[in-house]
């Protein structure tokens, strides 16, 4: 492989990698960093690149690791304020006796590509509204697909704490989606 190939990586796949990164990192700046780190790592690793894999697939594989690294780094900078766990907000979702305060409305089953795209946008918006630490745990788990054990270790929190945060994040996410019209129109 020649250096020339490396230049075509940026031209051919730069924008694609940027979009993938931005969707998970929710930041243009961090997404640019992810692309840069990916391409630099790819340069170092290109001897190991057999050349038969699709370069985009290969680069995307490297990018996924870089995204997780960046989320981890971002996590370490997040201060966890005392009220960050949203306990009171969860209380409001349930009655005293443990029943749901409001009935849950069913969701449609979106298949069309355009519809899916819209939903993805809504998901990202809702994820942005979670409290920072919750958003990080949630996105490491649901978007990046990390195991909870790894997440606990990274965050230096107990598994119980991790489950509590994920539970609350999921409750808030579904509530946010429902409030934004995610539910099937007219369904009871």
């Amino acid at each position, binding site marked *: 492989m020649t250096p020339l190939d490396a230049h075509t990586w940026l031209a051919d796949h730069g924008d694609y990698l940027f979009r993938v990164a931005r969707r998970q990192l929710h930041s243009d700046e961090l997404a640019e960093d992810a692309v840069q780190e990916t391409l630099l790592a790819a340069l170092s690793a290109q001897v190991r690149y057999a050349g038969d894999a699709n370069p985009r697939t290969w680069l995307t594989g490297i990018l996924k690791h870089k995204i997780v690294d960046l989320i981890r780094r971002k996590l370490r900078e997040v201060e966890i304020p005392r009220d960050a766990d949203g306990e009171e907000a969860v209380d409001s979702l349930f009655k005293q006796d443990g029943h*749901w305060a409001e009935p*849950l*409305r069913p969701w449609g089953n979106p298949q069309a590509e355009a519809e899916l795209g819209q939903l993805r946008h809504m998901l990202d918006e809702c994820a942005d509204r979670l409290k920072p630490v919750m958003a990080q745990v949630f996105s490491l788990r*649901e978007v990046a697909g990390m195991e909870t054990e790894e997440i606990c270790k990274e965050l230096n929190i107990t598994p119980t704490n991790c489950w509590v945060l994920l*539970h609350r994040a*999921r409750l808030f996410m579904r509530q946010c989606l429902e409030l934004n019209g995610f539910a099937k129109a007219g369904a009871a």
Partner: protein
Amino acid sequence: MKWMATCRETSELASRAMDERLPFADRLAMRMHLAICKNCARFNQQLQDMRRLFRTETTADDDTAGLTPEARQRIETEMQKKLDA
């Protein structure tokens, strides 16, 4: 856990079941509750829908977004530095 979990407890179990295999007693309590509670069955389904949606690649993601010329130039420079090193 008592013989029948509340909705709140069931929502906790359903969430945790997305992350790891539950102990038998918890799994049983959850299943029993889900079998008779429409709201919790919906919640459980929606947890799975959310995961599926988050992990689906869609071409409808803002197709026009891309690196700014400045970012592109910066990355190009960094790559060149590395090649020259």
